[in-house]
């Protein structure tokens, strides 16, 4: 049918149409405010962060240690009741050098988000966080990193209690 029909419907607009006032539009801002309960598992995770510890949870049936902790094992659907403290070191599983913000503003120095496999959790189990104190060109997958914490007084029980991860010397 596309061979028979050359003109498909739809009217594209350009920036110019708006500048010249050819198009009427209605602008509004929608503001939603939320207060999220942290729940059982993430509540424990945040309490751990406040104390300077990354907590995981362990399934005794699947013998998996996951992070962040959760109340149910996704594999066997049994409760995960055992919380285990993990190390605050890990390995970069993957990373990006990001030169734009969420609203498409440009950055000169990139943000470096990474998935970090946390030591003590099962293989390939990590969290997303940021890397700093590192030359962007030298970041690599497999790099060893360590959490840089806020001071005990400043910690509030949030993921940002870990300010970022930085490289540790590879031996």
């Amino acid at each position: 049918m596309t061979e028979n029909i050359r003109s498909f419907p739809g009217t594209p607009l350009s920036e110019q149409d708006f500048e010249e006032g050819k198009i009427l539009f209605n602008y509004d801002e929608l503001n939603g405010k939320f207060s999220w309960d942290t729940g059982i598992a993430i509540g424990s995770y945040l309490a751990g962060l406040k104390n300077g510890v990354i907590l995981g949870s362990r399934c005794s049936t699947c013998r998996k240690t996951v992070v962040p902790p959760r109340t149910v094992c996704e594999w066997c659907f049994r409760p995960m009741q055992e919380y285990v403290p993990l190390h605050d070191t890990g390995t970069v599983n993957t990373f990006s050098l990001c030169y734009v913000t969420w609203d498409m503003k440009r950055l000169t120095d990139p943000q470096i988000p990474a998935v970090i496999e946390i030591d003590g959790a099962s293989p390939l189990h990590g969290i997303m966080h940021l890397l700093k104190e590192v030359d962007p060109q030298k970041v690599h997958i497999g790099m060893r990193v360590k959490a840089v914490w806020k001071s005990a007084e400043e910690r509030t029980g949030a993921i940002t209690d870990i300010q970022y991860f930085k490289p540790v010397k590879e031996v």
Partner: protein
Amino acid sequence: MTMRKVAVIGAGMTKFVRRAQETPKELSWLATRMALESCELTLDDIEAVCMGTAPDSFDGIHMKGEYLSDGAGAWRKPYMRSYVGGGTGVFVPIQGWYHVASGMFDVVLVVAEEKMSNFYPHAQAAFLTIFDHTTERPLGPNLLWIFALEMNRYMTTYGISKEDIARVSVQHKRNAANHPCALLGDPDITVEDVLNSEVLAYPVQRYDVSPVSDGAVAIVLAAEHVAKRLTDKPVWVEGVGWNLDTAHWTNRDLVYPRYVEYAARMAYDMAGIKEPKKEIHIAEPYDPFDYKALHHLEGLQLAERGQAPQLYIDGTAARDGNMPVCPSGGLLGVGNPIAAAGLMKIAELFWQLRGEAGDRQVPGQPRRGIAQAWGDLMQVGTVVIMGR
């Protein structure tokens, strides 16, 4: 389980554009009318309507399914909107398929619409709330992060170069130059153009990404006895599959989309396909980013792990190759109005298998094609196999 055979008998779509003058309802109506006219039906012949559209936040309208219902011809009919993130466009025809296969309805209309330009200033921000509010959002993420992280993991694990990945973008955008609805078709684009485009979130550059778009697509599904009366060239839905992986996306290896494999195996089993590489003649994998097409070809068992770039290097994936990939131009070339983009792939297979794809026609009278979409927090795979 006895299921009835289901055919696609008509399809229609709007142009995919950066910003459409039409409202979401109007776009839906334009595509729907074209789909009905293509098989010479009227709304009276339609027994139920399935609507696919992605997050309400694009439009700032809650319960978007209900809002779109008049444009989709849904009034006083059984109607439901389905939504599985970016996977919606290939899930909604599956929803339509089980409406008909089950024996509940004989003729069903399937509509997918997206108007991303409503979101101001850029639709990317509408995706921010897919990240976990407590453990991820305080870090200030943006949507590009997850693609960049996945792409880097994929490239580094298999030692795939940026150049090999850029070939995907080039081929899809060149293919799209023959699509009358395409937003970013470009017959002259080169690998250098992609590699020299602005770095957004390394390894993702501007031309690695599909554009924000507005558009709508509609298809008509019919049971066998109706389809055979209405057309000499029904295109059968031979297999469907869908599958979801964990939302704890940092707890699994991003290098391989296992959920796409499971969805594909479900569809291959239903279609009786034993050797996908030989039995699939056209592939329309989901390609919002160029590396995603490669990732998905591997998940669909159409390439060995880490070997998908070879299909583009040796010409297998070209429009006149042994297994053309995205002859439509894909999301990279035609555009990416989320749900509509997935259904565009179904419409493309419909036109290709009927030999009606015009300038985009794949030679050699292809008999069978596969379309796939992907979405949510990198966790859902939806697959449809069509044949004639």
